[in-house]
């Protein structure tokens, strides 16, 4: 009996040149200028960052650009403890939802510049920027503690004003 065929190689490669679209393009331009700029929905007035082409609640274009603060509040987090291919940081590190002051939805990013054991809900953090900005959100290396007193976060993940 002949040996069983256990594998067949059929490599596939598809290449794309994807355009960011109007909204993401203006966001990447703001990153190059060292600013975090979201967009406000003209109907429900929520400020989205990163900005979205359309408000998912109201289905209208978010046309107004709104600068938001470099500082924000951690509303939830997870400590990444395992290594994987393509990882930018060495574990353990914290990824977190951070509601920036002036924004209504959290930004997913990294909390660094402190021990992972210090990361907590309500913690105040601020963006740490690379010296030479690139058109990517990774131009903000991570968010580090800014020393301000913690804010209260309710069980819906909203920062209590």
């Amino acid at each position, binding site marked *: 009996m002949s040996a069983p065929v256990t594998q067949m190689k059929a490599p596939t490669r*598809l290449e794309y040149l*994807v*355009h960011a*679209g109007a909204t*993401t393009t203006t966001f990447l331009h703001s990153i190059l200028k060292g600013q975090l700029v979201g967009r406000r929905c003209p109907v429900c007035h929520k400020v989205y960052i990163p900005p979205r*082409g*359309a408000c*998912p609640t109201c*289905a209208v274009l978010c046309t107004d650009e709104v600068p938001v603060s470099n500082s924000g509040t951690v509303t939830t987090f997870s400590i990444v403890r395992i290594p994987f291919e393509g990882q930018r940081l060495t574990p353990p590190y914290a990824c977190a939802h951070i509601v920036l002051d002036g924004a209504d939805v959290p930004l997913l990013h990294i909390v660094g510049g402190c021990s992972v054991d210090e990361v907590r809900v309500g913690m105040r953090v601020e963006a740490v920027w690379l010296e030479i900005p690139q058109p990517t959100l990774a131009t903000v290396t991570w968010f580090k503690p800014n020393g301000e007193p913690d804010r209260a976060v309710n069980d819906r993940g909203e920062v209590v004003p």
Partner: protein
Amino acid sequence: MRSISIAGIAQLPSKLAEHHMDAAELVQAVTALALADAGIERKQIGFVCSGSSDYIMGQPFSFVMALDGVGAWPPIRESHVEMDGAWALYEAWVRLQHGDIDTALVYSFGKSSVGNVDDALGMQLDPYYVAPLGVSPMALAALQARALLDARFANERDFAQAVMRARLAGARNPNIPTPTATTVDALLAAPWVASPLRAHDAAVRTDGAAAIVLRAGGPGPKITGFAHRIEPHALGVRDLTTSPSARRAADDAGASRIDVAEIHTPYASQETILRNALGLNDRMLVNPSGGTLVAETPMVAGLLRVVEATRAIRDGAHRALAHATSGPCLQHNLVCVLEST
């Protein structure tokens, strides 16, 4: 069958490259136009269904990102097909047959400019026997065209004439890139790309979006029949000179007494096959929009045929047929028959 009408239609102009708008922006724009055309508000919509392909858009879950454009929070009843939007329209029509909801919004979007559509379409071929050969969709269509010539069902001049008709009609279509004027003899003088097909025998690929609002009852063209049929995956077991699936779909959709037909032909050679299978003749107006040979947006082209058929009825036709196809060599065919009310 519950009577379903086309309450609203919309398309964004088909462009060779749409670099400015992302998927959510395309969807927001085209669905807003369709809802305005129908005079229906978003919150009145009972079901949303879309057709698109991540392989075409080059982004994982592009259809989920695009949902921002229809307002999917708080949650809505929503579905998606990784297919042309014509099949999303079919799903919405079936959904409305359940009887508990009365309106549906259907849309599709696609960009041919971001990647190589032929390479992406190669992904749907048999993974063991065909895909590893790296055969292009054009080569498969050429195999079909050769079978047509060998059976004496068509000649190369027929292919060129189909391209000429498409370009002449397309010159009057404000929503597509202006086709280049030509003559049949000039077309026939062009070199073969995959004999017997020439570059111009393949559809001009574009970027774009289309949307339709369906409503149970009410004004607007009525869907009197809707069906789709598919043929075997293995090309070798099919008779490529004919399309039994298109014929069955047309029969099941009750495609008779048609005034205007909008048919989806990725290649000029396929028009002969579809005219035969769908029972089209010279008394009917075929592809008044120019059809897909002058503008084919992947995942949108089929839904756009229904949009164009609706336009034909609004312009005075009594019964119109819209056809969509998918897969190599017209593998899967859909027919939607509309009637004026």
